[in-house]
C-alpha cells in the first residue's frame, strides 16, 4: 500500500519537501553555528536592516541579525511544535476514533457527541484564549494546546474507517476465531490505516505549524525560542513594513507556504490514488483522447 503511494509523483515531491524541512529542523542550528559561524541573535553592527547581499544572503533585520540564520533556526521552532502537536493530535484522534468505530454502541454515541462538540467549537479562537492565559509558555505547552483542538477531524475519519474495516471479511473471520478485541485492533485494523493516519499526521503537522505561527505572530506563542512565526512577529513589531524591509518577513512566510504546499501535494496524491478520475496521468490521457477524437472524425467522414 505504501509502495502504491510512493509511486505517485505528487506524493513523492510532497514527502521530499517535507523531509527536507525535517532535516533543516534537525540539523539547522548545527549548520548555523558550525558552517555559518553565527547565531540568529548575533548582531552585525555594520549591517542593520540591510537588503540581501553576499555576506547576508537574505539580508539582516533592523537590529542587525542575519535573516537566513533566523529562518534556518526558526525551522526547528516551527517544525517541532508542528510535529509534537501532530503526534498528540493523532494519538488523541486514534484513542477517540478507533474505539468509537470498533466498539460502537453507547460508547460510540458518547465519543461522537464529544468529537462533534470540539468540531464545531471555533478552535483557533479557543486556542488563542488559552494561549493568552498561559502567555510565555514553553513550546511543548503551545504544542499541547494546539493539539487539544486539532484532533476532532481526524477522529471522525478514523471512526468511519474503523467502522468499514470492522465489517470486512477478515476482521469478521478473526472475531469468529475468538481473537481479543485489543489484539484485533492492533494487529488487523491499525495496519490497514497507515495510509490515512500518515496523511492525517502530515495535515496536523502543517496545521500545527500554522497555528504556532499565528500565535507567535500575535505575540502569545513561545518565548525565547525562534520560530517562523516569531520572526514575522518581530518584523511586524519593529515596523519592517514601514521601513520596507521585505526580506525580513517574506522568507519565513514562504517557508510556511512551501511546507503547506508539500502536505497538500501528498494529500492530492492520495486522493488521486483513491479516485483515479482525478489523476494527472488521466489528464494526459484526456489530452490524447481529445486529439484522437479530433483526428478520428475527419477520417471517418471520408
Amino acid at each position, binding site marked *: 500500500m505504501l509502495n502504491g503511494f510512493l509511486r505517485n509523483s505528487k506524493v513523492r515531491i510532497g514527502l521530499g519537501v517535507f523531509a527536507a524541512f525535517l532535516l533543516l529542523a534537525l540539523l539547522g542550528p548545527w549548520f548555523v553555528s558550525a558552517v555559518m559561524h553565527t547565531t540568529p541573535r548575533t548582531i552585525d553592527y555594520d549591517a542593520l536592516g540591510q537588503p540581501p547581499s553576499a555576506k547576508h544572503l537574505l539580508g539582516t533585520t533592523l537590529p542587525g541579525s542575519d535573516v537566513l540564520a533566523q529562518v534556518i533556526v526558526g525551522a526547528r521552532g516551527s517544525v517541532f511544535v508542528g510535529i509534537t502537536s501532530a503526534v498528540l493530535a493523532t494519538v488523541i484522534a486514534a484513542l477517540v476514533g478507533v474505539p468509537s468505530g470498533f466498539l460502537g454502541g453507547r460508547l460510540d454515541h458518547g465519543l461522537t457527541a464529544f468529537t462533534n462538540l470540539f468540531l464545531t467549537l*471555533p478552535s483557533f479562537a479557543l486556542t488563542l484564549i488559552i494561549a*493568552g492565559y498561559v*502567555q510565555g509558555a514553553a513550546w511543548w505547552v503551545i504544542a499541547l494546546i494546539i493539539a487539544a483542538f486539532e484532533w476532532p477531524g481526524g477522529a471522525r475519519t478514523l471512526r468511519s474507517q474503523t467502522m468499514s474495516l470492522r465489517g470486512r471479511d477478515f476482521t469478521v473471520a478473526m472475531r469468529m476465531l475468538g481473537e481479543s478485541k485489543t489484539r484485533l485492533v492492533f494487529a488487523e485494523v491499525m495496519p490497514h490505516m497507515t495510509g490515512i493516519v500518515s496523511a492525517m499526521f502530515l495535515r496536523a503537522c502543517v496545521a500545527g505549524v500554522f497555528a504556532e505561527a499565528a500565535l507567535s505572530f500575535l505575540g*502569545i506563542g513561545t518565548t525565547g525560542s525562534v520560530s517562523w512565526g516569531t520572526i514575522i512577529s518581530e518584523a511586524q513589531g519593529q515596523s519592517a513594513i514601514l521601513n520596507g524591509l521585505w526580506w525580513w518577513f517574506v522568507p519565513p512566510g514562504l517557508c*510556511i507556504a512551501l511546507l503547506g504546499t508539500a502536505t497538500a501535494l501528498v494529500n492530492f496524491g492520495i486522493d488521486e490514488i483513491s479516485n483515479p478520475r482525478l489523476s494527472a496521468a488521466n489528464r*494526459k490521457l484526456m*489530452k490524447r483522447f481529445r486529439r484522437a477524437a479530433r483526428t478520428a472524425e475527419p477520417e471517418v467522414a471520408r
Partner: protein
Amino acid sequence: MTFWAALTFNFLIPRFMPGDPAATMLRRIQQLTGQAPTPDQIRSVRLFFGGARENLPAQYLHYLNDLVHFRFGLSLSEYPTPVSDLIAQALPWTLLLVGTTTIIAWIVGTALGAYMGWKPGSRFDAIFAPTTTFLHAIPTFWLSLVALWAFAFQLGWFPVSGAYDPDVPYQINNLWFLLSILKYGALPALTLIFIGFNGWLFTMRNVMVTTVSEDYVLLAKAKGLPTWRVLFKYAARNALLPNVTGLALAIGGILGGVLLTEVVFTYPGLGHRLYRATVDHDFPVMQTIFLLITLTVLIANLIADSIYVLLDPRTRDEA
C-alpha cells in the same frame, strides 16, 4: 449544546489557572496603568477568577445568570467601560468583513472549480490546479503583511490602517462615509478572498469531475440541452452540495484568518479587539469575544444547514 460547552469552557478556564492568577493580573494592571488598582477593580478581578466566597456550582449559576441578562462585566484594561460596549463597536466591522469576503470567495471558488471540473485536463485546469495548491497553503496573516507592504506602503494604492476615513463624518447615511468603508476595506477583503477562494475551488473541481460522469448529466446531454444548461442545472447544481456543507465546517477557520488579518490591517473589528485584549490581559473581553465567535459559528452553521436543505430535496423528507 456546543454553545453550552463554550460557556462552560469560559467559566472553567480562569478558575483552573495555576497559581494565583488574580494577584498576577492585578500586578499587570498596575504596571499597565501606572496606578494602584481601585478596590472596585480588585473586587471585579477576584470575582472573575472565582473568588473565595462561593463554591463552584454557585459561581456557575451566578455566571449563567449574568450571561442570560447580557451582563458581561467590565473591561479591565479600559476600566470601567462595559465589555458589551467595546464589543458592540467592533462586531459590525468583523461581520462586514467576514460576510462579504466569505460569500465572494465561495462564489468565485465554486464557479471556477465548476468550470475546471467540467473539463478536467484543459489548459485552464492544468495552470490553475498547481497555483491553487500553493495559494491555499499561504498563511493569511503573512499574505496580509505582504499585501500591506506592497500595495499600501510601496504603491500607495490603499490606506494603511483603519476601516473608514476618520475625516469623514461617522454617519451610516453619508455616501462619502460608505465609500470610505469600501476604500479602507478593499485591501483586507481582497487578501482574504485571494486566499479563501482556493479551498472552494479545489473541492468543487474534484466533486465536479465525479459528477460530470453521472448518468443524469449524460442524459441531460442526450436530451440535446445546450452545454451551459447541462453544466449549471445538472452538473454544477449537484456538485456544489458538498461545498455548502463545507461552508458550515469552514466558518470557524475562516474567522480565525479574519481575526489575524484585522490585526495586520489595524481593522477595528473583533480580531483587533481580541488582540489588544490578549496583549493587555483583559480576560473579560477575551472571553466575551470567544463566546460571540462561537455564537457566530453556530449561526453560520445553522444558515448553511438550512441552505443545504433548500438545495437538496433528499434531506427534506428526513427532517
